[in-house]
């Protein structure tokens, strides 16, 4: 299994509070991704990173920011959480050969009250 660790795995917070989710990899892969998973929507890309300090937006990036100061860590921040951001968040890294094959973390379940 790919070495991907997400933290926290579960979090309950209130509307308007900041939240940071962390993804840590031990594979030294260049590309890292944050997806959200919601019933009826499958997985949707929030942001991705193609190197240290190199990030770009995905299809549902509004309300989210990311940072990558080290190869192994990719942080997802909700500056002011809203109930619509209640979701399960998955971090992923690209497999070898850069063909788009992804390896996923176990997910972080976020509930915004």
């Amino acid at each position, binding site marked *: 299994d790919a070495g991907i660790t997400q933290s926290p795995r579960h979090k309950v917070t209130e509307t308007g509070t900041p939240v940071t989710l962390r993804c840590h990899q031990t594979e030294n892969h260049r*590309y890292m991704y944050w997806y959200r998973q919601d019933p*009826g*929507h*499958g*997985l*949707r*890309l929030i942001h*991705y990173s*193609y190197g240290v300090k*190199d990030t*770009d937006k995905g299809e549902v990036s509004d309300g989210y920011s990311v940072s990558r100061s080290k190869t192994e860590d990719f942080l997802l921040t909700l500056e002011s959480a809203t109930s619509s951001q209640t979701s399960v968040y*998955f971090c992923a890294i*690209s497999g070898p050969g*850069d*063909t*788009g*094959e*992804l*390896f*996923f*973390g*176990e*997910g972080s379940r976020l509930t915004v009250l």
Partner: protein
Amino acid sequence: AQSVTQPDIHITVSEGASLELRCNYSYGATPYLFWYVQSPGQGLQLLLKYFSGDTLVQGIKGFEAEFKRSQSSFNLRKPSVHWSDAAEYFCAVGAPYSGAGSYQLTFGKGTKLSVIP
């Protein structure tokens, strides 16, 4: 932009029966295609992938999928389903993503498989 359609939201089969999960994609060139499986409370695990070559690809857990360019399909099959196959299955298409030099995956909305003992 690429897209993926999984027409079946939920499928129920009896244990030992055959299975086919449908996936249709939209992409202008030859895509990279993937099937992932997600057990409850878990992340996604790669079942199989198609990049090029033989259009019938074998994956883990006895699954296979066939790429049909003329139908823009990549259907997943298993000849005999086991109770442990109950999970949600996601088809995905990978295509080059501008600006980063990487391939990006677009996922279908998933098909939930229930297995009757």
